[in-house]
């Protein structure tokens, strides 16, 4: 009798645990937006349980393949290998465009430089240039402390594509786990350079013009800023589009809603809809 009750209890626990949970994993760039969405969404639907992770776009997409997440936040499009894998496994991931972002190049406020070209940026990150004085003779002869997001990051992937254009990042580039760490490192270190989603930028760092253009909302939307990119939420649609009324559907619809898009702007990014 006791054993039966124990088993029943376990089953109940499991059942309760599986009820109404939304799992979101992926992009570190989208993380702050997602947190705002979740806080607001919980007010509308208090009975819902949501978990969020922001270890990087690649972790989200990997989780989508593994079946361990409902929504994958991604600050990059799918890679060729991922599309191949989708085909091989007979899966289809639905891309939902939720916001726009520009990758901002940041340096310490005390560094006397205001803009940079993609060429120079590439040379810094591939290791061709290692001293600030090589960028501009007026700059101090100090080693550039180069930061980057780690390889799990969608931001990293986009940067690699648009700036490095296939070249390898130098091994001495420091890989850090999140954009926030990059901001702080640059704020404290006069010789650091880093790149982050524009939503992370604060007063404590200086944003450089890239090829003469600042990552303002206008410039990103008009495509003038060279490092602009859309932000996505991917959902596994292999077994059908999410049913209206289902948790995934409701959450995505909330992200698209006026309030959801307001929160995108609140986080420092650019709304995709309602412009």
């Amino acid at each position, binding site marked *: 009798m006791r054993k039966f009750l124990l088993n029943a209890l376990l089953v109940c626990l499991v059942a309760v645990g599986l009820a109404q949970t939304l799992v979101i994993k992926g992009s570190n760039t989208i993380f702050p937006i997602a947190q705002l969405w979740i806080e607001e969404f919980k007010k509308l639907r208090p009975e819902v349980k949501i978990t969020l992770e922001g270890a990087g776009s690649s*972790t989200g997409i990997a989780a989508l393949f593994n079946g361990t997440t409902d929504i994958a936040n991604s600050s990059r499009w799918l890679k*060729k290998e991922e599309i191949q894998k989708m085909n091989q496994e007979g899966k289809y991931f639905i891309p939902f465009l939720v916001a726009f972002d520009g990758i901002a190049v940041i340096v310490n406020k005390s560094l006397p430089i205001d803009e940079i070209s993609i060429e120079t940026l590439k040379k810094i990150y591939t290791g061709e240039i290692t001293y600030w004085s090589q960028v501009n003779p007026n700059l101090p002869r100090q080693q550039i402390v180069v930061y980057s997001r*780690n390889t799990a990051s969608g931001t990293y992937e986009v940067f690699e594509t648009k700036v490095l254009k296939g070249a390898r990042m130098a091994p001495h580039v420091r890989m850090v*786990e999140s954009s926030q760490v990059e901001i702080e490192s640059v704020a*404290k270190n006069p010789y650091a350079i880093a790149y982050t989603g524009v939503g992370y930028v604060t007063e404590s760092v200086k944003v450089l013009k890239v090829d003469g253009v600042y990552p303002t909302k206008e410039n990103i939307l008009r495509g003038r800023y060279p490092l602009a990119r859309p932000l996505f939420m991917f959902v596994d649609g292999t077994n059908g589009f999410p049913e209206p009324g289902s948790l995934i559907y409701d959450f995505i619809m909330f992200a698209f809603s006026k309030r959801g898009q307001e929160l995108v702007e609140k986080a420092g990014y650019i709304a995709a809809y309602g412009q």
Partner: protein
Amino acid sequence: MVFVLAGTGVLALSLVVLFILKEAIPAFVKVGKEFFTSVYWYPTSSPPEFGMLAMIVGTLLLTVTSSAVLIPLGYVVAFFLHTYAKNLEKDLIRTVVEFLAGTPSVIIGTFILVYVSPILINFGIWSPQNFLLATVGLILAALPYSVSLSLEALDSVDVSLEESALALGATKFATTLRVTTRAALPGVLNAFVLTINRVVGETIIVLMVGGGAAIIPRSLFDPVRPLTAAIASEMGEVAVGSLHYHALFAAGLILLSVSLFLTGLSRYLSRRAQP
């Protein structure tokens, strides 16, 4: 019944070795020598490169430098506690050292990031996460092992041996150095081996303060990324079953082999220590 439950120990070890091997082998088959010959770790590019040499050397260098401080330091403190310390002193210092043993490594890492790293910036060292800090962290983490085990070894020597030496006119210092240490040599060596094992396996501290760039560090202030940190940092982004996944397991296999070897060495030494 008791026997069956006790057997879980053996079962557990076999499973651990089995699974790590199982998941690592596909990587060795596909990548093979490159692991040990190339310093280019680019697991996410096309085509991917899996050179672990920089990380292996990183692990090696960190272990060597930390141990170079840890082993003598631990021995010196143990020497002092065994030979000169009065009971109260011995108890007090031992207790504090044992508390350090129980301190979670994440706290040591946090302590270094919050209190020690900023000191470096004040001295004009613009690399706030580097080899030196990682070494300091490792020393803090493994020092209790070094001290306690050395002390145990020295204390376990028959008191009459020491008394005879003293009676013959030897100084306390000479007694401990020549007589006790020689008698306790296997035990003391065992302490060294186990300390090294602890250093090799430390993950969180090096992940937090090492700097995250997989290069062979050429100066104390270069960043470093040992195998443990790479595994912890990248495991989140891999799809189960991908080559990257297997490559990380291969790194795990290297660590496992090293630790099993050191454990075996330690067992041999402790058998020698017990007459």
